[in-house]
């Protein structure tokens, strides 16, 4: 069965369409004639950008007054699909709300989700998801065997965003039914954690630190180097879990997927969960004292040495340039 209509989950960050949404729209346009967006919230402010990237319509729930996106949007999508207005496939970004919505909808439709997708290809008329495993050593190609709506959870930075020059998407209402016992959660307050300097997932250079730094104070070296290179500081999950830096610094399977021009890994061994988030970087530099560390398998330049010696020397050399 050919794919003719795809819905893309539209997410907004502080009123702007999220980059992941634009990436998914670009891929959806390549695969289907009809591409529309779905949004949990008020879509009037994002319809122009969605249209410029190829969505002809956006089906939106309107303001959710504190209800969570996942459970609300999933119920609305379920009803739209049950009424016969659904698409062949829905693309969700691997984000908090993307996972929530896809998971809820999956159980409502009794339809599986193909997850952790980095590419989509057509095989014998079917849409097949490509999922890297073991840190990207192998790719698993998976297809759906039922004729239910095909739900794909797709990782950020898998596709390049591209404008289509389309007019603003028409906004139509997507009714959220009574959520009954499932709808009790309410957002009562929102907090934004300030981050200075370039955005981690958009910076041209990322400097990340890991457990090899030894202790939390040594992360200052990573920040200093990042500042000198106008780079974004990042971190492995190990030091985020240890509380050295906030979650917003995390690069990896959970956390941010980054693809900068240069990625500098300082004292990071390269667990699968980290490699997945950075191996798409154009150039990778790694400093680690263990020559067997997996990070060296993806490094273009690897320095087998002590970060406590190499980093201060590097910082000094860059300062004196």
């Amino acid at each position, binding site marked *: 069965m050919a794919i003719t209509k795809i819905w893309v989950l539209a997410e907004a960050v502080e009123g702007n369409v999220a980059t992941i949404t634009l990436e998914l729209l670009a891929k959806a346009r390549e695969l289907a004639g009809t591409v529309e967006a779905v949004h949990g919230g008020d879509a009037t402010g994002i319809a122009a950008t969605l249209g410029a990237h190829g969505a002809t319509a956006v089906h939106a729930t309107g303001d959710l007054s504190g209800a969570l996106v996942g*459970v609300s949007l999933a119920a609305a999508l379920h009803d739209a699909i049950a009424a016969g207005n659904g698409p062949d496939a829905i693309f969700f970004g691997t984000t908090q709300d993307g996972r929530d919505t896809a998971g809820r909808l999956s159980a409502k439709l009794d339809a599986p989700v193909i*997850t952790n997708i980095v590419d989509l290809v057509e095989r014998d008329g079917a849409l097949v998801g490509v999922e890297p*495993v073991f840190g990207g050593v192998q790719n698993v*190609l998976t297809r759906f065997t039922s004729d239910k709506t095909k739900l794909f959870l797709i990782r950020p930075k898998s596709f390049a965003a591209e404008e289509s020059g389309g007019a603003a998407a028409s906004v139509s209402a997507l009714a959220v039914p009574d959520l009954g016992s499932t709808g009790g959660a309410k957002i009562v307050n*929102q*907090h*934004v954690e300030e981050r200075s300097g370039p955005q981690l997932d958009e910076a041209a*250079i990322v400097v990340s630190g890991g457990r090899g730094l030894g202790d939390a104070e040594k992360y200052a070296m990573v920040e200093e180097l990042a500042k000198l290179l106008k780079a974004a500081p990042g971190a492995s999950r190990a030091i985020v*879990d240890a509380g050295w830096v906030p979650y917003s610094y995390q690069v990896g399977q959970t956390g941010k997927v980054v693809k900068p021009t240069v990625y500098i890994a300082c004292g990071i061994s390269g667990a699968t969960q980290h490699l997945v988030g950075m191996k798409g970087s154009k150039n990778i530099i790694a400093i680690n004292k263990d020559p067997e560390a997996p990070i060296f398998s993806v490094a273009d330049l*690897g320095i087998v040495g002590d970060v406590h010696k190499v980093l201060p020397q590097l910082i000094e050399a860059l300062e004196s340039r």
Partner: protein
Amino acid sequence: MRFCRPSVGWARIVGMNVVVCVKQIPDPAEPGSLDPSTNTLKRDGKLILDESDSYGVEMALQLVDANGGGEVTLISMAPRGETAGLRTALAMGAAKAVLVSDDALKGSDALGTSKVLAKAIGRAGDYDLVLTATESSDGYTGTVPEQLAELLGLPSVTFAKSIVVDGTTAKVDRQTEAGYDEVEVPLPAVVSVTAGVVEPRYPSFKGIMAAKSKPVDQVTVADLGLDVGAVGWAGAGQEIVEVVTAEAREAGDIVEDDGEGYARIVSFLSDLKVI
């Protein structure tokens, strides 16, 4: 929070019961591989408690302590009656476990797993809260918490950084792309816990000894009243078409630091014209 009416006096809080879903996975320190006949992850070696789940276990133990007692019950699905990971969590302080183990579960996807966990939770007794990790460290689909909540007909909050229970409501700080949201949810509810938000305790010697005799209720798919067609390969609704070796990155220049390692980095950056 459950209220009961003693023979004299008025309703009083008797504590809370927390269910924690835990996965027993192949040791992530060992290189993983796919079973060539099924293309699924090999799970024939020893299985251990997924580290991601140790945070939920710790969170549950702390909540029970903070709310006047109660029990932490573990729910797990694993091949061959595996209990090694469950014993770790029981040694941390969980009271009991329900383990679903059945050959018919081979090949189950996240939705099939959620169906099994939802039914198994039905055997755990009264509960106020169900905790999960945000994702497992071997399959990392990250969809189970919401699938489970929907199957149980419960509200949910995912990516929790902290949970405080106040009467019949949980106050949850939920991680977002921009920071975090304060969310209030009536109990019972499903909450997924972000890794690293609490420090999982090490089992004491006494805890390890006690864990050996704690009850593990081992059940099959039939015991749960589930149709075998809804789980395992048959229920997955998806199939692996092919497994291909990914294009390897070209081998890089790996050098021992002789005191001039930093200079190699400077010239590499300079060649790229980023400095």
